[in-house]
């Protein structure tokens, strides 16, 4: 059991390492072969070719905070969908597919009430 479990995660680790090596080798090779003539204008920050106004470390609108809050709640909900998704087939084969489907619909439905509340309160409106 434990061997299989750790074996599964060795696969994950190999893929992580492969991704890291791919990016690392790309950056190192690019750094070796590209010309390097830094100048003041080149190292300026730009966005879409427009010169920056103000400081990068500026205060942002409080509206983003509510979006992050909503994201957090729905992220916690999403976490619970994973164990459900892994068991749907088992339950469906045991003739309880309707039961497990309805359970998840109820779970998501209750939280959708919160989304309805947010929309009714105008939280998601961009003014």
């Amino acid at each position: 059991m434990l061997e299989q479990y750790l074996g599964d995660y060795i696969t994950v680790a190999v893929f992580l390492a492969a991704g890291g090596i791919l990016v690392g080798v790309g950056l190192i090779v690019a750094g070796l072969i590209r010309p390097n003539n830094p100048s003041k204008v080149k190292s300026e920050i730009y966005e879409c070719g427009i010169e920056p106004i103000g400081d990068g470390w500026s205060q942002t609108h409080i509206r983003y905070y509510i979006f992050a809050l909503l994201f957090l709640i729905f992220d916690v909900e999403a976490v619970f969908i994973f164990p459900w998704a892994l068991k749907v087939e088992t339950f469906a084969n045991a003739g309880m597919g309707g039961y497990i489907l309805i359970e998840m619909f109820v779970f998501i439905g209750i939280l959708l009430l919160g989304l309805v509340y947010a929309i009714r309160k105008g939280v998601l409106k961009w003014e």
Partner: protein
Amino acid sequence: MFFAVTVGDWLGEVENWVFAVLAIAMVYAAIRVVTTKNVVHAALFLVIALGGSAAIFLLLGAEFVAWTVVMVYIGAVIVLFLFGIMITRAPLGYETKLSHPRRVRIGAALASGALFLLIGGAMLDAFGDDPVPAAIDPTRTSDIGQSIFERFVIPFEVVSFVLLAALIGGIVIARQDPTVEEEEVLQ
């Protein structure tokens, strides 16, 4: 008897090496969280510390908890922290003066040391040398699904209500309702 394992035995297992690397990285990141002069860097060092704790949960065979830490804490709570930092007027740039006076620092060090001793003592007292059951027979995410939908369906639905309450509470706290006059202007 605690600590019946010798150092040689301990170093003989690959998992212990992985744990040692993770623990060193986590302790370093945790120290940097409280010592860095830049609040945004503190949040990013917290990502390393949380990632390390997720990896330790994986080593312990608690797969679902590990990925929950990654998704919820690293994915959402840190984003919330960063937005929380960004909406405040607190100075965000480098070399800001965040440090508290010495007596506050000593108090915080004492409090965290006491918490460490309390949790560590409780763990040793309760489990001692016993291995964590899941580290021998790991709890896969599908096992969690099995027990949720076989035995804990009602608590599972209650979680949804708890989240709903958290969502509405969050909106109520974070958002200021427009006054009656403003409401009329809007309509």
